[in-house]
């Protein structure tokens, strides 16, 4: 009986380990290696006489065991919620600047993935629409598949919004989702 239990636990451990490998080999995680991350970008702005820009920065890690992969993004909003005033003065996607930075870590080849135009330069959130190609990967990130492996591409996003008196008072909600796909 003890032998059977031992074998059962060995099998479970192996399966869990294999699952982790699968997770780590073609995955998006946050900086804490947590899969399927949700990174909240929150801005609370109040205009003032001086020029102020509020920025938010977040990062994701991309691991791929495939030589051909892509990161695409979809955007929703920002949509006004309980906002009054001229619609032309609502906060819009093109008011939010977007800067992306892609960096390789560990064994990930520095030339294995590139940001696709217009994202190598600073742009704004309106550049992301539906199924917009952000990163094109031509090499896998490394040969290790452990969940904490240090071979990955890191995509850092910085969103900025200036505190302009022109924006209507209220709340605006939106969402950008990134998906890792392989043909």
């Amino acid at each position, binding site marked *: 009986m003890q032998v059977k239990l031992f074998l059962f636990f060995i*099998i479970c451990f192996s*399966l869990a380990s*294999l*699952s982790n490998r*699968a*997770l780590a080999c*073609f*995955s*998006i*995680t*946050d900086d804490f290696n947590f*899969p*399927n*991350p*949700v*990174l*909240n*970008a*929150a*801005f*609370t*702005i*109040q*205009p*003032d*006489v*001086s*020029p102020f820009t509020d920025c938010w920065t*977040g990062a*994701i890690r991309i691991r791929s065991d495939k030589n051909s992969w892509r990161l695409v993004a979809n955007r929703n909003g*920002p949509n006004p919620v309980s906002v*009054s*005033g001229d619609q032309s*003065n609502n*906060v819009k996607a093109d*008011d*939010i600047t977007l800067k992306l930075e892609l960096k390789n870590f560990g064994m990930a080849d520095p030339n294995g993935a590139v940001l696709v135009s217009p994202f190598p330069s600073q742009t704004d959130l309106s550049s992301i629409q539906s199924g917009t190609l952000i990163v094109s990967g031509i090499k896998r990130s490394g040969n290790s598949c452990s969940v904490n492996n240090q071979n990955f591409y890191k995509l850092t*996003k910085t*969103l900025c*919004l*200036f*505190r*302009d*008196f*022109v*924006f*209507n*008072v*209220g*709340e*605006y*909600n*939106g*969402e*950008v*989702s*990134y*998906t*890792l*796909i392989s043909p």
Partner: protein
Amino acid sequence: MSLKTTTRFLVILLLFISFLFGTFNLRAKSSQATIPINITVSGKLIITDAENDNRSGTDPTLNVVLKLTPELNSSVISGRSAIRIRTNLNNWKLTAQRRDLSNPSITNIDPKDVSVNFTTQAGSKANPNAGRLISPFDSTTSLGQISTNASTDLLIGNTQTSIDKDPENKNNWFQLTSDYSISPDFFYGIGEWDTIISYSLVSP
């Protein structure tokens, strides 16, 4: 095949299927990141000194000094102050209240003797019609029209002051200029007469 062997085979098969199912799910689930974006824009009402239109010039104290010596045929003595208003609120007003510091009996100066003319103008990124002067302040009047007992409505705004984006918040000002003047009349006694006019920008 014995029952024991069959059971063992089925258990292993079940575990294998579970593994495949779990793995595929993990592959699908772990390949996405979501960034919810929440933006909250708060209201702001701010007054600055037109001559010092930055953060250090907010809530200014502007001294207007009128020195008069009576003279035959001499012209009126005048002084000026200017404040700039910025707000992203669509409903605002500027009120004024007067507080006299000196005993008028020394100089015989009455608040009605000091005439005041208010004018408005706007920066290149501001709406020149953002605020409207309320009667009697829409034409030349006197300090006597600004009450000492309660706030007097001076300027009413029904829209935000900006008309265009101005990331530096430099040219989106709505300005109120106040021109004060008094005649150098021999009627006035020698001495000093002081008053304070407080302007408040509020949103009802």
